[in-house]
Structures are given as C-alpha cells and as structure tokens.
C-alpha cells in the first residue's frame, strides 16, 4: 500500500512539474495529454493522497476507493473551473498561468502529505 502511494505521488508530481513548461511551449499532443491529465486529476489526486483516503483491507471500508477516485477527479475539475473563472472575472486571463497555479497547488498538497505522520488516518465504521 505504501509503495502504491509513493508511485502515485511520484506520478502526480511528475505530471504537475511537466505541465509548467508545457503550458508555454511543446508539441500540441504532448501538451494536451499532460495538461489535460493535470486538469482532470492532478490537484484532486494530491488532495486524496494528503487526506489518506486509503482503503484498508477491511470489508467494511470497501467503497473508499471509488469515493477517493471520484473526489480526485471532481476536485481537479472544480479547481480547474474555479481558477479559470477567477482569471476571467479578475481580468487576468492567462491560461499558462492558470496551469501553473494548478501545478503549484498539486505540488503543495504533495509536499504537505510528506510532512504528515505516516499512520493511516482513515477509519471505517
């Protein structure tokens, strides 16, 4: 479980880091793949890792995994929507800057996750 979390953290960090330069320059296909993935799942995955939404090997806790995935996607879409909308209303429209904000947010959540105690925090009723 711990190694799965690590791999997920590394992959999320890699996407967030790669998205920053790609939001300014790069081949269209690669930019769409990386930035699309960041907007769809980046900040949310980092948040879920931070919240320790693990699904312990407990029969009663099954259901945590789909909820984690759902929150990861919905939170990423939410932040992408809100960042873009805020830029519009603030008259500061700059898509690459919006992507940088999402990347920094993702990396910040991952950084916070590193500083948290390692003990699993989720419990099942």
């Amino acid at each position, binding site marked *: 479980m711990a190694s799965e979390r690590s791999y997920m953290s590394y992959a999320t960090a890699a996407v967030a880091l790669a998205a920053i330069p790609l939001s300014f320059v790069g081949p269209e296909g690669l930019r769409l793949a990386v*930035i699309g993935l960041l907007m769809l799942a980046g900040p949310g995955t980092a948040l879920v890792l931070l919240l320790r939404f693990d699904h312990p090997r407990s029969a009663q806790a099954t*259901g945590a995994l789909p909820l984690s995935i*759902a929150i990861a996607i919905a939170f990423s879409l939410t932040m*992408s929507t*809100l960042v*873009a909308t805020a830029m519009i209303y603030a008259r500061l429209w700059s898509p690459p800057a919006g992507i940088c904000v999402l990347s920094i947010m993702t990396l910040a959540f991952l950084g916070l996750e590193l500083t948290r105690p390692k003990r699993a925090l989720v419990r099942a009723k």
Partner: protein
Amino acid sequence: MTHETATSHPVGTAHRHEAHAHVGGAKPPTHRNLGLTPSWHIGALAATAAVALALGVWSMTQVDPLLIGGAGLIGVLPPAYFVALGLSLVGFVASLSLRRLVPALLTWQLLVAVVVLHGADPIIHGLPRLEATFRHLGIADNIGQSGQLDPTLDAYFDWPGFFSMLGMLSGATGVKDLFGIATWAPVGINLLLLAPLLALARRLTANPRQAWAAVWIFYMASWIGQDYLSPQAHSFVLLLTLVACLLSVFGGWAWPTERTRFSRRLARTVSKLDSSAPGYGAIEPHRADTAVLVVVCALFLLAMTASHQLSPFAVIPIVAALLLTGRLRLRFFPVLAVVLPVGWLLFAASTFLAGHFGQLVGSFGDIGANSLGALSTRVSGSDAHVLVVYTRLAEVALIWILAVAGAIVGYRRKVPWLAAAAAALAPLVLVPLQPYGGELLLRLYLFSLPFAVCLAVLPLMSDNTAGLSLRRALGLLLMGAVLATATVVSRYGNDGMESFNDDEIALVNRLYSTAPTGAILIEAVRNTPWRYQHYADYDYRALVAAEPIPNAAPLSCDAANQIAHNAGAYLIVTQSQQEAAELRGSTPTGDLQRFTATCATSPGWTKVYENAGGVIFHIKGVSNGK
C-alpha cells in the same frame, strides 16, 4: 486482482469494533480464506467482455450513416451489435453471480458496456453530437481567445465556469480544435461517472453486489444523452461526487434527535421506515481531514454554480431530503446550497436576470404546464419519432415502477431504502419552478436516476451475500436486456438530427470563408453545426426552431428576405436541418426541400455553394452590401 466481499453487516457498535479489528490485525485475504473463484472463470469473463468490445466496435463501424432513418440507429445496427451487447450483459450478470465479487473484472465489464451502449456516436459518425456541442466549443473558443465575457451575447456567458475551463485547456495546450474531445465526450463522461456512481451506490444499498448492479442499471437506463461536452455533464459529475461525499463522510442527524418534539417524531418516523443506521458503512476520516472535506464539498457547489444554471438548484432538494432523513449532519449545507446559486443569479448573472425575469417567474407554480404541458409537446413529429418518444416514456415508467417496488421491498426487508427514495423524489420539487425550455422533465429524470436505480435493484436481487440465484440472475439479465435495447432506441432515436457529417462541416467552413465578418447568417431550421468558431463575429439568426410546432406553417422566402432586407444575408440549409424539421414536426413534411427549390429562383438569391451536406445562398439586401 483484489476481491470485494458482498457481506451485509449488522448495524451497531459491535460491527464497528469488528471493523477496527480487521484494519488492525487481519491477515491479507488469500485464495484459501476467501474461497476464490477459479481464475479461469475470471479470465473467461474478462475475455468475453473483450470479445463484446471488439465485436461491438466492429459492428458499429459497419453502419452506413446515410441509411439512418426516423427511428434512429436501431434500424441500421447490424445483428452483430446486439450479439456484442448480449455478451456484455451476460458477462456482467455472470460476474455478479460469482461467489466473491471481483471489482477489477466488474469495472472492465462496465467500461465495455459503456463503449458498446454509449459510444455509438463517436464510432459511427466521428464527429461531436448535437449542435449545442458546436456552440459550446465556440463559447470556449471565444472566452479562450478574448479572456472576457460578453453576457449580452447569450446566457452562457453568465455561467462561464465550464467554458472558461475549456478555454484554459485550449489556451494552455495550443490546441485550437477541441473536436476530438467533444466527439468522445459521451464515452469519457460516462467513464468519469463510474467512480461517483459506485461510491454513491455503496452508501445507498445494503451490499456491494447491489451497488454494482445499480451502477450497471444506471448505464442501461441512461438514455437522456446529456453526456455531451456540456456544463450540465460537468456539473453532474460534481453533483454525484458531492452527494457521495456527503453521505460517506457526513452521515447522521444534524441535531440531537431528542431536542424537540419535531426532531423526536422525525427521528422515530425515519427509524420506523428505514431502520438501517444513518451513515451506515460510512468512512470516518481524521477531524482535520473532515474539515478539509467540508471545504471541498463547498467548492464542488461553487464550481457547479459558476458553470450551470439548473444543476445547483437540483442540489438543494437533494441535500434537504438527506438532512430530513438523518443522512446529512451538516445543517448549514442546504443553506449554502441555496445561497450560492441565488447569490450568483443576483450578482454574477444579473444581466440574464434583468432580461429574463418575466420568463423565469412567469410559469412559477404552473405544475401542469411545466410537466404535462412540456411532455405533450414532445409526443409529436413523424410516426417513427413518436415511437421513439413512447419508448422513452416506457423506459422512464419502468425505472420508476421498479424504484417504487424497490422502496416497498426495502421497507419489508429492513434494508437501506429511505435515503435513495428521498433523494430520487427530491428533484421533482423543481417542477413548479419553470419548464427550463421544455427540458425540465428530462433533466429531472437524470438527477433522479442514480438514486432510483439503487431502489430498482432491490426487487431484482436478494440480500443474500453469496452470489445470485439462477432465477434472480435471469431476472436481472432480462431487465438489463430490456433496458439496454430500449436505450438503443431512446438514446439514438434522434440520431438523424443530432449527428452531423463531414459534408455539413465543410459547408459551414465554406460559409465562414465566404461571408464577411459581421454578416447576417441565417439557418433555415435551428440545427446547424456552426458557431464553433467566430461565435461573436456574425449575427446568427434562425427562421424556425427545431421544436414541435402544431400545424406548422410552410417556410416562406419572405421571412429570409425580411432579415436580409437592409444589409443582405447568407442562408444555410443542411441535411440535419431537414432531418430535424421532419422528426420534430417544425415544418410540414417535405417543406424544406420545397423552400430551397422555390427560393433558389427568387430575385436577389444566389447559390454560393452546394455539396451533399446542404446549400448556401446569398440574399442581396437593399444596400447590396454584404
């Protein structure tokens, strides 16, 4: 491959202690202590799904779009498609009947079902479905290019969240053409719905087996087709995740049940109706994480509010219903759900409110006009279309009958049912508000469906933890087959008008390259795949809406001449406009061909371009300008 138990657990503290014991010291499950299904069974079922996928995709590529008639795809799909659909259904029910559930296998089978049942548009046509998709691409393009909102153009700019997000994606990737994303959106959005649907169903049903079946029934019965690249699809993903999160983390009474006579009575009544404990099976994160999740839920609501007019208003009755049934302990949340969309309407969407106040409140309280009135106007058009509409009504009726039966069964069996019933009924309180362009009933079915299916599975499945009996499995398979076949009819019944071809896109591109910026562009019937670029660069008009019009009058050249009177105009007539007019009964049968032939010879009319997709005319104005 991990395996999921289907055990239904007694409610109470003992169960909670048992759970902690499992977390703390239980050995990981092995094939010995789980009594696993032989792996070749799982492999065979996975392979069956793969065969269904390959056969389904191949059969759809064999469809000739030119042969699609008034009844939609059902008339042109080859038998191999139905074999693929059947294999997909049989495989899923067989997996559900295994003694131990295999989530990875069930997920794979659901993905296959989604592609086979909801992937026909991209596979057959290779273009985005619905003219609204093209408009949405144009709004995103406009916002992405200008970085500004122009609420005077139309109402979309008052709820710009989703379009801003698309504009940001386009701007940051350099990809100006999001056609590919729009084309595959129905498949993508249905796949995005899988996790929230499953999370929700796990909270509303008694065991995982029922939850998987509920999600499967959802896909079988989801014919509404709101899964295109649209703010409502985006908001629906957020809405389901929000409700799943609230039920999972914030279950329970929002107040001490013994505090007042009302709360005491309410708790007693709820307990009498549904004795399953509130928050049953819920997840209990650390306190700080719970606080973060409150903020996350509020952000979901805010993003929905910024993106779509209707969806946040659907959240209000749903969370209120959960609060009153002891399934939501955040008492401020329904208040927040009211404040955000109303505040947005008053402040951010004030331009829309000022221009549409009469329209918004005009039909307030008119339940008849908003429900039966809107319904009766839809049961019209060509005979084939009327058959499609009746199939849709029958499908809705079947789901609701099953849901009502499920509520009764749930009550008798003392398994969770009340929260699903309350949340399924809750969106219906929106009926008195306004007809939402005649689409309210469709949207309400969609909002209710994720909850209704959690009830609908109850009569079809026992609470038995070890697989399905043969009788129940056959019953479930039969129901799935009926719903899936009906969905092929109901979802793709308007395919002739909802899908487009490359010739029509070429025609529209030719229009843009011919007409100077600022020119008036007229569509004969409002169903043209345009405005995906130059959204604000032209003055777009339509002679007639693609809506059912009783005793519709024939189109006249004069209507177009009047619009073109001053500065001239360009008129476009496309194949899918003709399909829409015939299907919906917007014009008399064959009228659009007559209109085109008659007007082509009118003075001042010049044919600019014609291909298999349609024709463009230039109509000269008085100033002979544009």
